[in-house]
């Protein structure tokens, strides 16, 4: 933690960056995103196991982008995967953002997509046991039961859009949910509106989801929405051999095709 603060101060003093996006202590001993632009603010930085938010989401926010060159604390590998995916989607220029990775006995400074990729090769991506168990349970259910499961979960949805707004890949200036001339997806959080919203969200993230699980964590009513994008990602990986957040140079699976793509259901 001290070496992170040290590094952040050096970079700020040298003028290499304008701000560090990291974590600070939050309510009831949680961790919250924290923007440090001065030595005083750097002293509030925290780096530990409780830092779970994927900060890459905030990098897409206007007010943060306009601060100038940024360093982001990448306690979680998913933050680096997000940066790779954002680079592949031309939202972040390669080399534009420094990543500070807290590591044993120091802090690793990564500056390029290539460096992100090399670092990620050392930390294999894995779903949590709890998520994997629920995914497996859902897949094993009879279809009608699965339908009932999701409808029950969605019935709590109030369309606060915390899942969308906490997602680093949901950076669209105007989300399709907000397109109202004409209204494409119903705005109300009734059964039809909720089913369509969650289907669209998952579909729009298929092949782009970095599996940080931020959407599920953000949901105030505890709907496991992240399993929808996790599942879509698994489907893309199984069928097209590529997934979100693996590379800064590969096109999104659903923006491209191969003439020999194999399916089993088209008549």
């Amino acid at each position: 933690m001290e070496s992170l603060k040290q590094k952040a101060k050096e970079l700020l003093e040298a003028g290499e960056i304008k701000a560090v996006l990291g974590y600070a202590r939050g309510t009831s001993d949680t961790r919250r995103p924290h923007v440090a632009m001065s030595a005083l603010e750097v002293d509030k930085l925290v780096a530990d196991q409780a830092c779970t938010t994927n900060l890459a989401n905030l990098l897409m926010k206007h007010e943060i982008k306009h601060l100038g060159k940024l360093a982001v604390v990448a306690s979680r590998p998913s933050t680096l995967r997000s940066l790779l995916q954002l680079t592949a989607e031309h939202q972040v220029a390669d080399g534009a953002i420094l990543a500070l990775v807290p590591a044993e006995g120091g802090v690793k400074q990564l500056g390029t997509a290539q460096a992100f990729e090399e670092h990620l090769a050392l930390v294999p991506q894995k779903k949590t046991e709890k998520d994997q168990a629920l995914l497996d349970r859902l897949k094993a259910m009879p279809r009608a039961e699965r339908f009932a499961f999701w409808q029950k979960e969605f019935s709590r949805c109030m369309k606060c859009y915390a899942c969308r707004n906490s997602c680093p890949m949901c950076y669209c200036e105007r989300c399709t949910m907000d397109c109202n001339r004409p209204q494409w997806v119903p705005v109300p959080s009734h059964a039809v509106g909720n089913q369509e919203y969650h289907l669209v969200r998952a579909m729009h993230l298929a092949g782009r989801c970095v599996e940080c699980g931020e959407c599920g964590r953000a949901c105030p009513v505890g709907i496991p929405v992240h399993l929808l994008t996790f599942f879509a990602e698994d489907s893309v990986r199984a069928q097209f051999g590529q997934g979100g957040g693996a590379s800064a140079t590969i096109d999104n699976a659903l923006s491209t095709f191969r003439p020999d793509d194999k399916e089993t259901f088209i008549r």
Partner: protein
Amino acid sequence: MAERYKLTQDALSALFEALAKDGRRILAPTDADGRTELNAVTSPDQVSKQYLQTILSAKETVFPKVERLLSYTTEGGKVDLKDAQPHALPTVLFGVRPCEAGAFKALDAVFNWDSRDKFFNARLEKLAIIGVSCTSADEACFCTSAGGGPGDTQGSDILLTPVQGGYLAEILTPRGEAIQALAPQFFQAGATEDKEAVLAKVEKAFDREALTAKLPGMFENPVWKQQSLRCIGCGACAFVCPTCVCFDIQEEADPKKGERLRLWDSCGFSLFTLHASGHNPREVQSARWRQRIYHKFAYYPERYQQYGCVGCGKCTRACPADMNLKEHLVEAAQAQ
């Protein structure tokens, strides 16, 4: 001071039965996969044993997240318009905290401001509140800074305070008396337990009247931008808030039929103030965050002579970015 009665746990079960017999549904905090939710119950056993608050507020009982205002069908150029009838069931809200019980007043201020909202009133008229005092609080709570307190009686028809062997009951309104009259034998008069002793300790964090006086002069203060840098612009805070009253109207129609719906909206959304011209008077999140604070602590007192925040802390608990309202209000109160 209202007379205090003792209500034993067994008497509470009997009271629930009496309420059901009277045709009322009872909504209470229940445990659901680690979350505390407001659900219909028939017995006190179903009520959560250890809860601070429900995630969502009880405002849903009078201001549902989606409700029908009218519907119509068209045939051969003829339009058949139907007013929606509010689906209002006689309801007892059991176990809501004093902060939330007090929040209905803030909703009432808006829904009955110039015209009387028939949907809101139809539901409110059939609602009775049996509040339960707080014996614990968390870092998000700031009721005492928002004009309330862990044992505050405002808003409740009956307020129960957990004491040894049951509850201390304060009958506060005619609606409370009507409930008592359903089963008067269960309310033992002359209770002497010390209410204050069991209440949670919630330190006063700021002076809200001073804050209100100060806000008009700090519209351009950098504090709003600093605080909201991490805000992601979702509507979680507004949707869980017991006093947030903003709604959207949506028309859902096809060529043969349609309906007009009222649904929750949030000033945190960028679309909230977007004009048809494309201009957005609150273009950045800091302006929206400031609006949230100003609406509750400046505009509400100015227009309705009351506050739009009860200090329940639900927004803080629900926020994915940990925007702690109490902490930020203290900062604003201290800002230069």
